[in-house]
């Protein structure tokens, strides 16, 4: 299970309408449907993932979220989900704004590129990090934007939105302790923000 997934299930309101942007095989939406009786819709650009999604019984639209979400009306969904995708899209701002237009609230899950191990790798080795979380070399990575917890905080503030829940994941107890003390920009590996329009 991907870290923090269970928290998405906790945050999704019972019986709500949920859109997952970049839904992959639709497993999360399927789980949400089975556990929270949500009305799911996936968005996926890759046809083979979309086929898996259909086989999971989840309706899905093939489209490029970078081009906006014109297909959907304002506040059509109760919740929009974007997992590990903000760093991969060409226009994170467009995607962020569109999410909050089509849904009443949004959950963003992202990797924190300001984690101390990444900082250390850059500082000590002078190299872009390659690790379990970031297995790609810089010249062959889907991640085209590098963002930290602090960066997403600023994006939310600048776009007149509010973070209503923050959740962090780190593998070690020490890091988790430090996350709790507010050092999460240094110690969180993964973050989940539940965001609402002001």
């Amino acid at each position, binding site marked *: 299970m991907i870290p923090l997934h269970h928290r998405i299930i906790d945050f999704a309101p019972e019986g709500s309408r949920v859109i997952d942007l970049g839904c992959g095989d639709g497993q999360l939406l399927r789980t949400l449907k089975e556990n929270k009786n949500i*009305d799911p819709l996936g968005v996926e650009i890759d*046809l083979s993932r979309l*086929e898996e999604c*259909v*086989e999971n019984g989840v309706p899905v639209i*093939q*489209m490029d979220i970078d081009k906006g979400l014109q297909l959907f*009306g304002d506040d059509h969904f109760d919740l929009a989900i974007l997992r590990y995708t903000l760093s991969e899209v060409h226009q994170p701002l467009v995607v962020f704004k569109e999410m909050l237009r089509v849904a009443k609230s949004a959950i963003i899950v992202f990797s924190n590129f300001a984690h101390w191990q990444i900082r250390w790798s850059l500082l000590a080795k002078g190299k872009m990090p390659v690790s379990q979380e970031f297995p790609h070399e810089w010249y062959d990575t889907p991640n085209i934007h590098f963002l930290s917890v602090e960066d997403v905080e600023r994006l939310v503030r600048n776009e007149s939105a509010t973070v209503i829940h923050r959740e962090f994941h780190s593998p070690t107890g020490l890091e988790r302790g430090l996350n709790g003390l507010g050092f999460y920009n240094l110690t969180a590996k993964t973050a989940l923000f539940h965001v609402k329009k002001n």
Partner: protein
Amino acid sequence: MPLMASQQELIQLDFDHEFKLGGRLPIAEIHYESHGTLSPEGDNAILICTPLTMDSHVSGDDPSGDPKKAGWWNFLVGAGLAVDTEKHFVICSNVLGGCKGSSGPTSLNPETGEPYRTDFPEVRVEDMVALQKRLIDHLGVKKLYAVVGGSLGGMQALQWAVAFPEMVERCIAIATGSRLSCQGLAFDVVGRQCITSDPNWKEGDYPLDGDDPVGGLALARMIGHITYISKNIMDQKFGRRLQDGQKGEGFATQFAVESFLKYNSERFIQRFDPNSYLYLSKAMDTFDLEEGFTSLQDSMARAKSKFLIISFSSDWLFTAEDSIQLASCLLLQGLPVTYANIETELGHDAFLVDAPEIASMKRLVGGFLEPK
């Protein structure tokens, strides 16, 4: 009845139906093929709607083994396939206005003892669906598990979803749209004029076993065929090559593409009636889900089914945008919609071809009908 029976039947039905543009048939004939067995609850039926010139033989190999005589969707419909005839009672009927057994211009008019020819009422997609509904009721189907169609068949599937929303659980519309574009209309207009300007057409009163306007029909088919395939596939398949043994002089058949179009149209005229072609082509052109509504959105508000909409990247008759527009209207209704655009060079006719990239269509249809 044995399990998994496949059968073809021609039946007569009381068809108490006023055609959209007026006219009635005292009795309607419908020829259909079925596979599998209807469940006792009558809820496992899947209706396959035919594209412009296909008949009810949707699935099954020909006893002769001739692959050209196999069902036209043999790779999609059958035992263990995406539309699984082991699980579902699959029905495919010949369309109203066609010439393959169901009532149409070649049928005998009981009042005159002569074929109807152009006295047959003008047929619209709404009328085709009305007759299919009559058949479904007759067969004891309570609810359609799904209605599936490509191109003109897709239009029928969409019409089913808005005309009988309570009866259609799932609607699969492939390479289709709420209406044909102006460019599509233009090609069809020329196609019909090829037939009506053939001196043998005689206002539709040609003898059915003699000098019929096959020249006009062949031309209409050639024009149609050009719209069914993409520019790139034509370049790949034929390019500028000359047909074997041709020197490229004179006006007779020389280019490979010319020979291909001619060969296909010659086969086509042996199996199709010119008046029927006019009727069906006009039905396709006039279909417009927006008609009588303030917007497509308004019209699609009648639908209640789950939808699977598939387009093909190189289809210029019904583009991805046409499908997206449909999907958008249905999504705004809050209906569960799946939309996919399959990358292929095969053009509009892609849904009829068992090519490697069309495996996606099989997987989508199969997954949509029977999720894991």
